[in-house]
């Protein structure tokens, strides 16, 4: 999953980035509200972690702007100021969740998963698709009741497809969410991952939509 982290403090940002990477999130870090606007327009971010104390603009007004222009991605607000009114204002400005600094890494990860799950319209923490069951926070996958251990990238690819359900994803979109925007990727790497997924699970798990991209195969083709 692709997270946009908007945080001006370098030390905090590197900690969050490293912590989320341990849980297979791809994190793009920006320091200013200006950079955050640009990043949100160009990167396929599934969720945003937004620090309120930004140098160029208040995080709250940035969030309000985003909501006003119809950007609906889940946003978790981080702040080191702990007044309850600030918390309420954050939620009113369109935040989906609120976490005070300092927080527990596990709590941040759990909340991110919950946000992504709710954003995908699921109430259950487990994602099921036919014989497939996937627990995003535990990174645990079973196929017909048996545990399958997939390499990190393949699991990310599968997760992306599961979250998008029947929507078609372009190859670029998938690459972005697998690698983030600052890693050079070989052109056929995605094809290799897709091939592996089909071989390990079922040929129908990834469906190619000619000229457009890929989507999750429907349950009856598995």
């Amino acid at each position: 999953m692709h997270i946009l982290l908007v945080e001006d403090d370098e030390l905090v940002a590197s900690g969050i980035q490293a912590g989320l990477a341990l849980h297979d999130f791809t994190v793009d870090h920006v320091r200013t509200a200006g950079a955050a606007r640009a990043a949100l327009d160009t990167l396929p971010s599934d969720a945003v972690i937004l620090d309120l104390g930004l140098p160029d603009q208040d995080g709250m007004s940035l969030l309000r702007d985003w909501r006003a222009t119809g950007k609906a991605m889940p946003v978790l607000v981080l702040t080191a100021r702990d007044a309850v009114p600030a918390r309420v204002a954050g939620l009113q400005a369109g935040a989906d969740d609120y976490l005070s600094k300092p927080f527990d890494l596990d709590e941040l990860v759990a909340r991110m998963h919950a946000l992504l799950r709710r954003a995908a319209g699921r109430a259950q923490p487990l994602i099921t698709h036919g014989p497939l069951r996937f627990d995003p926070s535990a990174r645990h996958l079973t196929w017909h009741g048996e545990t399958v251990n997939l390499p990190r990238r393949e699991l990310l690819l599968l997760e992306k497809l599961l979250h998008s359900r029947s929507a078609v994803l372009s190859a670029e979109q998938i690459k972005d969410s697998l690698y983030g925007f600052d890693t050079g990727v070989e052109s056929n790497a995605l094809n290799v991952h897709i091939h592996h997924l089909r071989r390990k699970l079922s040929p129908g798990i990834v469906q190619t939509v000619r000229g457009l991209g890929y989507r999750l195969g429907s349950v009856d083709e598995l």
Partner: protein
Amino acid sequence: MSLQRRLLLILGLSFSLLWLLAAFWLQRGLEHRLQDTLDQRLAASARMVGGLVMQLPPDAWQVPGGATLSVPADIGVACQVRDSSGGIFLQTHSALPDLLAGGGIGFHNREIEGEPWRVYTREFNGLFISTADRLTERHALQREILLAAALPFVIALLGSLSALWLGVRRGLRPLARLYSALSQRDPASTEAVDIGPVPDELAPVLATLNRLLHDTGDLLQREQRFTSDAAHELRTPLTAIKTHLQVARRTDPAHADASLAQAEAAVARLQRTLEQLLTLARLDSHEDWPAGAPLKLEPLLRQVRDELPERQRVQLPDTLPDRAPHLPAELAAIAIRNLIDNALRHTTGAVTVQATLRQDDDLLIEICDEGTALDETQVSQLTRRFWRHPSSSGSGLGLAITDAIARRTGGSLALSRRPSGGLRATLRLPAYPASVGKNDRST
């Protein structure tokens, strides 16, 4: 008790009391005068009858059989004429018994047939002339006169009481408005109190109140901002420490090192912020600072420069005033170090320091850099606690500390933009007399 009620009570009671006293006095006076006047009337009637009787021939009375001359009775004055033997010659009220029975000469009050009378008797050449008034009539007359006098009196009293009530209420209306405005507002509110036009006496009260409210509001706001800023500055490195430690524990040793190094950097920052906060707190509490030996400007500046990581970029002048700043050397060092440190942070070029002694024996220490161009608002914010330039990594406390030190010792800190860009910081500190202070730092 409310001011209005107290005023009404005091004024109303004294009004009523005074008017009642006046009324009592008037009544007593009237009663007396009336009594006298009616008595004079009795006496005058007796004199007149006496005069008339004397005009008659003496034999007019010597009627055989003692028939009494009678005049039809009327209300008002009764009259009776008799001789010394008791024979009645003339009387107005035939039904009345002897008016003189048991009485003497002069005025008397008597009960005749169950009715009280006022009787006057006088002697004219052996004839006794008595005139008499019914006291009930007198009393009725007295009551009528009193009533006629009292009615305007009572009306005037009631009128002045209501005028008093209206006047007090009207006069105290601004106070009542202030009362209701104050009792209805949120006690925690620091908004100005507005009750419309106020009388001259109340205007300074309201102005003072509003100024105090405004100052308190400012103070509260500054306090809240400071607390919030402090929370932010302390929690941010704490967050970095916690997150990096958690990452270090979950990851393999090779990656853990990088996280631990970051956590350490965050600890260093937290430590610096804490130390600066403690310095500020000590300065704010006006606690005594250990004085130490006064240090002259030159060794002081050299010491400050040598402790800085990028000392080669700091240019000290060749000659410096041979004086020591009049404050503990430690504080002087902190104040100057913060200024130079701030300048070094915002420029990659040189930082020049200059110092002069003013006529009034104050030292002027000027620190100039060629760093980030600031706008006027930013310059005015520089000494605000925790304010820092968006591109700065400092704690935002250094200049605030220098400012606090300068104020504490009666000096000042002035910050201004340089025409060529960058910042000029001018620190004014009072100086010791020339004989005080060491020229080296072997303390």
